[in-house]
């Protein structure tokens, strides 16, 4: 069950178990001898480092009073302030607090934070940042509480604090011992210690951190059907709404039959929502909402509307011509983003120029849980339950839409049935807010799968043209890469047609190869739909293009893929972005570059781990091949070695090795599951996911024409290799970086298996 703090505003949803957490505690009865794990101050056991977390909106909070309370029975309540969409952050961050606190995980109760960034710090669960930014705060929170418990016990017994031992939910000195609950009231009233005054655990004393043995906190609820997702919360008197939205972004309804919808039994209202056209941020598209007593009636009522739509300015968007235009654009000079050496001279004197172009269609995230949200507008306040990646932004957007101060709006975060970037954009929450205000009742907005596919914030479509200049000896002396794709920025600001620094930092300007003459440019492409971010964002088309290009170049040069990659990466170096001509606004995933530099030795290492793992170079039966790709994204390094077997034209992947360098691995079991998942999503990207437009509208609708990898054809035997480190090797990203290298590795393997080179994704399941 999801549990929230201080849930007092509105009638409580029947499916939520709610508890008020008390900081009052009383002396308990049981006490047991605890074995000393550590005692003396050891702040040096945890040297801290700077991350981009402090620069995020509302930054980082490491105040234990915000995140921890201890009940009189010793139950330790820990707040999870990031959204859970499958990565495990709702378990892993509290697990870190518990370990450093010496709390027994079995006695930990997890409370899901409401959207309140001034209180909890940044909650925008996106960009593979949860552990990267919050791991140090979690450890500090745990260490603070353990120190305060020890101080309280020392005062109680009149003994020096450094002789008090805190171990596994007990505090002891000699034969005396007290439980956490016994000490909580006094301990939590003490001042929070400074980092330097905390006796951090040495790493070899970690019980949970780095072990991968703690199961996700919602595991039992998920397997019994008790887990609470967006559409699982119900309020008394609640209505359910579906919305008929304009098929073309920026379109409007010309006419609709509200009477026909109202005639459907159970329909209680038809309400037209205001329209929007990009740039409109996460504003709903508008449309005609049908509000009903239940979901079925809402769907039936919507079907009865028979809306006639006007397309608006984007009704001429056709994928076929647009893709051809983008490819043509790659052949002209674009805005130069990175210039290193003298690429024109290098290409002029080259013995050979090798050029290829790669393309990708739009994609929709299609999390298994389609968007859904419940809002209860009560005049001067509103409470929301929703599966959102960024609950504070959702709260601000919804408050603004209904004209309330955000102080009077509360957003409770349910579990997310997948997110992948879609649930960062809470247009569905704002719809629920507007409808609750309109009909004066709690309203759950339910998106159908068709809604989800027709009205997403799509991953951009792209064309990537790469050219390599080679000298007589076959050495690459020049590289040009023109990347053309509609920009995410068009969702937020008037569209100039060019990429912005966050997109160009994702696998384009940061090409880590050791090549003396480089030009990265960006041709224009205007957006004609809502462009948003999808797991790994621009890294997907860039890794697809670069990885495929390396495979092609290897073949052209008569080298094996590993040799080609290693030749291009060169000897291990830490990239100096200034010396290599990176743009001044180079974006290293929001991190301070000095702490998270590009270290090409890590690329080499993971490439070799994956290649060695699969036995790259071994002889294979006919119709089999191995493909390699490696890519740095979200400050992590991931290599994929995929073995493809082609069976009657069907591309299968019987084996894959993935190697990741993500710095310190706090929860290796979830890292493995994320990479196994990325392998499957990568197979979907490679084979299935294509959103295309005709006359401005999306052509796909549901799984019958927008399918995904299924149990009958997914990467089997995915072996995950994690580079081992100590805690001070800064943790980087995990949720996203597994995805980008998968599709080029598959394409390179297909070529090895059957000699066919595919340059567009999705490439189809059968070739």
């Amino acid at each position, binding site marked *: 069950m999801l549990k929230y703090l201080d849930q007092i505003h509105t009638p409580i949803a*029947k499916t939520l178990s709610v508890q008020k957490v008390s900081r009052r505690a009383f002396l308990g009865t049981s006490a047991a001898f605890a074995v000393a794990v550590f005692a003396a101050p050891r702040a040096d056991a945890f040297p801290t480092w700077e991350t981009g977390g402090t620069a995020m909106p509302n930054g980082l909070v490491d105040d234990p009073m915000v995140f921890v309370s201890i009940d009189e029975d010793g139950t330790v309540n820990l707040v999870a302030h990031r959204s*859970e*969409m*499958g*990565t*495990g952050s709702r378990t892993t961050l509290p697990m870190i607090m518990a370990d450093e606190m010496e709390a027994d995980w079995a006695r930990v109760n997890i409370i899901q934070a409401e959207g309140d960034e001034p209180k909890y710090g940044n909650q925008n669960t996106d960009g593979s940042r949860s552990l990267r930014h919050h791991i140090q705060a979690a450890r500090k929170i745990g260490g603070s509480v353990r120190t305060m418990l020890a101080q309280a016990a020392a005062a109680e017994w009149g003994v020096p604090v450094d002789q008090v031992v805190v171990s596994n939910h007990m505090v002891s000195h000699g034969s005396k011992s007290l439980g956490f609950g016994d000490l909580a009231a006094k301990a939590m009233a003490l001042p929070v210690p400074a980092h330097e005054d905390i006796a951090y655990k040495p790493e070899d004393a970690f019980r949970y951190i780095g072990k991968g043995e703690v*199961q*996700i906190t*919602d*595991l*039992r609820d*998920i*397997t*019994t*059907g*008790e*887990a*609470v*997702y967006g*559409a699982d919360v*119900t309020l008394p008197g609640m209505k*359910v709404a579906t919305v008929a939205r304009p098929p073309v972004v920026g379109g409007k309804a010309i006419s609709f039959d509200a009477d026909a919808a109202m005639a459907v*039994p159970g329909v209680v209202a038809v309400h037209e929502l205001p329209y929007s056209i990009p740039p409109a941020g996460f504003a709903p598209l508008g449309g005609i909402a049908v509000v009903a007593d*239940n*979901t*079925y009636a809402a*769907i039936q009522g919507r079907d009865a509307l028979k809306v006639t739509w006007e397309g608006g300015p984007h009704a001429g968007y056709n994928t076929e011509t647009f893709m051809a235009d983008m490819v043509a654009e790659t052949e002209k000079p674009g805005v130069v983003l990175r210039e290193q050496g003298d690429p024109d001279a290098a290409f002029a004197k080259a013995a050979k120029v090798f050029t290829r172009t790669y393309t990708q269609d739009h994609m929709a995230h*299609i*999390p*298994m*849980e*389609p968007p859904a949200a419940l809002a209860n507008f009560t005049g001067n306040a509103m409470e929301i339950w929703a599966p959102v990646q960024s609950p504070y932004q959702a709260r601000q957007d919804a408050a603004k839409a209904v004209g309330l101060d955000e102080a009077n709006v509360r957003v409770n975060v349910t*579990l*997310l*049935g*997948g*997110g*992948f970037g879609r649930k960062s954009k809470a247009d569905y929450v704002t719809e629920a807010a507007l409808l609750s205000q309109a009909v004066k009742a709690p309203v759950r907005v*339910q998106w159908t*799968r068709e809604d989800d596919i027709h009205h997403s914030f799509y991953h951009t479509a792209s064309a990537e043209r790469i050219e390599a200049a080679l000298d007589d000896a076959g050495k690459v002396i020049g590289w040009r890469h023109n990347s053309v794709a509609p920009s995410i920025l068009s969702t937020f600001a008037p569209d100039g047609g060019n990429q912005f620094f966050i997109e160009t930092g994702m696998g384009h300007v940061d090409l880590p190869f050791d090549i003396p003459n480089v030009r990265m440019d960006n041709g224009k492409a205007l957006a004609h739909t809502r462009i948003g971010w999808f797991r790994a964002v621009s890294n997907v088309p860039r890794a697809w293009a670069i990885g495929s290009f390396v495979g092609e170049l290897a073949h052209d040069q008569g080298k094996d893929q590993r040799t080609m990659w290693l030749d291009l990466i060169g000897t291990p170096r830490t990239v100096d972005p200034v010396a290599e001509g990176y743009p001044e606004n180079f974006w290293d995933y929001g991190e301070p570059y000095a702490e998270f530099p590009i270290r090409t030795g890590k690329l080499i290492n993971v490439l070799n781990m994956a290649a060695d793992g699969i036995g790259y170079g071994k002889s294979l039966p006919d119709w089999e091949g191995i493909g390699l790709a490696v890519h740095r994204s979200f400050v992590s390094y991931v290599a994929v070695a995929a073995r493809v077997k082609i069976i009657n034209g069907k591309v299968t992947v019987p084996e894959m090795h993935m190697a990741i360098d993500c710095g310190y691995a706090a929860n290796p*079991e979830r890292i493995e*599951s*994320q990479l*196994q*998942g*990325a392998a*499957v*999503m990568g197979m979907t990207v490679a084979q299935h996911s294509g959103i295309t437009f005709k006359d401005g509208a999306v052509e796909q609708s*549901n*799984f*019958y024409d927008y399918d*995904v*990898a*299924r*149990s*009958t054809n*997914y990467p*089997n*035997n*995915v072996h995950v290799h994690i580079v081992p480190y100590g805690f001070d090797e800064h943790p980087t990203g995990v949720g996203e970086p597994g995805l980008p290298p998968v599709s080029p590795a598959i394409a390179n393997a297909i070529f090895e298996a059957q000699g066919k080179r595919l340059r567009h994704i999705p490439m189809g399941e059968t070739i």
Partner: protein
Amino acid sequence: MTKLNINGTDIDVAADGDMPLLWAVRDIAGMTGTKYGCGVGLCGACTVHVDGVAKRSCQMTVKEAMGTSVTTIEGLDQNGEHRVQQAWRDLNVPQCGFCQSGQIMQAASLLAENPKPTDDEILEAMSGNVCRCGCYQRIVAAVRLASTGS
């Protein structure tokens, strides 16, 4: 008044007979473990047992379900300890978890019908259940674990 037997209990569902069983289970009976994922029978998130056999509850009407015995994830095992549920926990199958009740219901139905399926039979039986997080490797291993104990 329409009566449905869900998890061994007769429940009055004041529902249109054409309403998909999925919405009757979720909206009327108030059991939310059964999930909506596509509405067209292609993702398996809404899988329940009808007279012991896995069915997509979005593809069956209330009228059709009358007189049958419907089991949802909440009723698969009284204590939530069906061997498939246990196997799912033993192997840490879920990521987001949303599809998993449907996956578990599908797997339980498969094993009831065919206690020792081959690997290919497992893959085929589970092919209608989509997991967007991509937990298939562990799903298949968990079905095998529930079947063979290893």
